[in-house]
């Protein structure tokens, strides 16, 4: 499932200079565009793009892959082909699917084809913005005899400890790693397994 070729580039970077990537894309224009980009980026000797349906016709190689990655709508239909493309023992497979139903079908297929250590997980990237935050100190008034019982009086700097107080404005400043207001909550589930 070459698609944009983004993952392919990352994989090529990882297996260079002695490894090779075989990538299959069933859409003819996308396959051609990928080939062009690999050429432009000077990595065409490290990758073979095949234009076919991996579910029907497989990867075009047998018994050599250290790992197979599937990013297609019906990965369970490609499990058998993935198995024959993988080396005899110890090869790894990973399937990426947005829907849990796809994951269920894929896990079942993996089991049927004798894969072991089947494990599904999801990973989310959380980014933080580093910000200096100023929080105002509330005005709780003053006790009648000027005996401040609260330790958070802005004029009582000895109580601040590790907080930086801006005495004039009655604020407290601190550094924080602030999460973004909205984050990507889901892209897909990753299912890994071993060919044993």
């Amino acid at each position, binding site marked *: 499932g070459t698609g944009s070729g983004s993952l392919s580039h*990352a994989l090529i*970077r*990882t297996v*260079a*200079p*002695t490894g090779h990537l075989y990538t299959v894309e069933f859409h003819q224009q996308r396959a051609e565009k990928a080939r062009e980009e690999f050429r*432009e*980026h*000077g*990595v065409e000797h490290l990758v073979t793009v095949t234009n076919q349906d991996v579910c029907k016709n497989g990867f075009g190689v047998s018994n050599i892959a250290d790992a197979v990655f599937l990013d297609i709508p019906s990965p369970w239909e490609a499990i058998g082909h993935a198995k024959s493309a993988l080396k005899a*023992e*110890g090869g790894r497979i990973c399937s990426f699917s947005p829907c*849990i139903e796809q*994951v*269920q079908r894929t*896990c*079942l297929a993996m089991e049927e084809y004798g894969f072991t250590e*089947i*494990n*599904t*997980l*999801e*990973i*989310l*990237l*959380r*980014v*933080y*913005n*580093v*910000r*200096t935050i100023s929080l105002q100190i509330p005005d709780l008034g003053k006790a009648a005899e000027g005996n401040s019982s609260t330790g958070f009086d802005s004029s009582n700097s000895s109580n601040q400890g590790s907080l930086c107080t801006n005495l004039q404005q009655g604020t407290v400043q601190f*550094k*924080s*790693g602030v999460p973004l207001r909205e984050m990507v909550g889901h892209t897909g*589930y990753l*299912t890994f397994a*071993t060919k*044993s």
Partner: protein
Amino acid sequence: KIIFEKQWFYLDNAIGHTYGTTFEVTSGGNLQPKQEVEESTTETKEAGTDNRNIVDDGKSQKLTHDDIKALKDKGIKGQEIVQQLIENSTTFRDKTEFAQDKYIKKKKKKYEAVITIVKPSTRILSTMYYAREPGKINHLRYDTLAQMLTLGNIRAGNKMIVMETCAGLVLGAVMERMGGYGSIIQMYPGGGPVRAATSCFGFPKPFFDNLHEFPLSKVDSLLSGTFSTETLPSEPEDNVLVEEETNGLTDEKQISLQETEEESTTETAMEINQTEEHDTMDINTEDVEFKENKEKENKDNVREKQRKQWERRKKLIETAALLTEKNADGLIVASKFHPTPLLLSLLEFVAPSRPFVVYCQYKEPLLECYTKLRERGGVINLKLSETWLRNYQVLPDRSHPKLTMSGGGGYLLSGITVVLDKGKSDSSHLEALKMEEPSSKRCKVQDLHC
């Protein structure tokens, strides 16, 4: 005999089998390749519909601890024990099919001693360390490590600087990605680098040819131009040879001296053997010869120690030269130390337009690091992140996230170096700090040349 997961067994029978072979532990503690057993799925098992009538009084299993122990001692296979437990459970057939599955799985895990031996890799070692010895790796979770390898663009041919106190796991991961190509300089605190985990990877010897190390305690002097090999970490300050001038000469001297020493030792050894055969040897002569041999032995030891020391100094100078080139392709930091001082100094050795990644178990030190880096300048694309990891149980009609998940796997601060414009006044940096930082823009790079 080794112990693993409460099982005692000998590894002898494993030799010769391929990686990935599954063994059973026999009653004698030996390994035996496990035969593939066909699970009987054809017969419809008797099962209930729900647990409304099942009372958990702890008495449903008729076999006692002693009964089970007796079975184990008889050498009965784990599979059989599980079968016995099922047959002696009064509530088993009332359980739902799902509950029965769960019960069998649980008993199998406890009584079937099945071991699979796998080839080490970053994936396996990082998972094991995180599960069993997280303290040794500063709680670096395996997905965080994966992020580091990608953010750091670790690949064959790089000249990497690695500073870690993760038992050598991070170093091993970097070495695995580099496949023996390129070079790595490992910065280390104290007397020497810890590479306990690195040796578990099973790398071929050539991988270590381009692995260098350099003590952190010498970094300041290296940066300020006052570096010398006068004192090596945890070494006594003895008479030092001025290597740079007498390198060649000392080398030859050492080798020729060693050769003569070796020759005389073998001669004396032969003499000792001969004298022992003659019972009527004078004891005094023996004594003197013994003393002479001892003296020669001590001289040998001293020579050997000096030679090793000389080797160390030579390597140190070479590594210092590599660092002062200031052209490393990347920097990885993953240690128990506060990241800021490490980053600020080690970044000096990295070429511009190169990635760096810092791992910290806690977020706050990275907040400070971020701020200091902004003040320093010479970095872009600073990103503070963490990855959230969740495992799933995927079974027909029973799919859901697992009960427990890791609370945290550490934090990463990553960025790219740029040419440090020392001419710019610092006030512009301080201004940026006062204002709200803009959100990261996506830049289009027109000409992409690899």
